[in-house]
């Protein structure tokens, strides 16, 4: 639904970077690897949080 606030594994706050990541790597055509490096999301546990996330609010909101 909404992006997890923290990384499940290490507890780093990843949601802070979600909107920029989404804008640049998902909506835009930048390389996700480079975007994550620039955002300072270093560890692969935190990187998978953003890479594998899908926002579902728009999908479920019509049924509210």
């Amino acid at each position: 639904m909404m992006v997890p606030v923290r990384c499940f594994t290490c507890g780093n706050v990843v949601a802070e970077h979600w909107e920029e990541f989404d804008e640049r790597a998902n909506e835009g055509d930048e390389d996700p690897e480079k975007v994550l490096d620039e955002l300072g999301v270093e560890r692969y546990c935190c990187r998978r949080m953003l890479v594998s996330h899908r926002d579902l609010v728009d999908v479920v909101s019509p049924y509210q």
Partner: protein
Amino acid sequence: MTEEYDVEFVERGEREARFLVRGVTPGFANGIRRAMLADVPTMAIDTVRFVENSSVMFDEQLALRLGLVPLTTPPEGEFGEDETVTLSIDVEGPATAYSGDLVSNDELVQPADQNVPIIDLKDDQRLEAEADAVVDYGKDHAKHQGGVAVGYRHLQQVEVVGDLPEFEDEESRIVRGVIEDNGELVPTSEFDHDLSNRYPGKEVEVEDVPNAFVFHVETDGSFSVEELVTRAADSIESRATELEDAVQL
């Protein structure tokens, strides 16, 4: 411990640092690590009273999200175990409620990150809630864990022992952490973690330096790295004193 105790910073930032500690036993190094994770209390939202929540997520889900937002934690002794700080949030859609929308009634306790999306609100949806933040320990809930990915490695000493045979292919030799080369501390990231980049054509020997540990510490923003480490050490000290008092005749 006969060896002299010494601390030296390799990298130092507000939320991330790397430092070398000499003259401690592996057990003590691990004690510090564990204290940083579990025994340094931080402020986090624990109770939420919803006035209105017409968003697509349940109250409980939003309460969890609010709890995970790191809050700046005031100095030790400023807040007692049962004291609370009230934060309120009131956002009307269409908009996204961010952690930065939380309004605290105490200047010392503020959201450490401003851009954590709490919930995306559509037309006519609204989130209004009041939350109580308390001080608690990482061992009770991960939201109270101030240290993030805290760990340590042995300091490694690199010594050049000779030249590689002339026509031998150079193999990469990966080390991670910090190496010591003639008393100089070099983070392995400086040579892409590969010793063959730093010592081309040389044969090198890598050895752990006994009782020297390189800590890598990050915090979630509740306080600085320095604060976290000193509070962890204080917590060990106070528990050791408590034990000493308890077993005294």
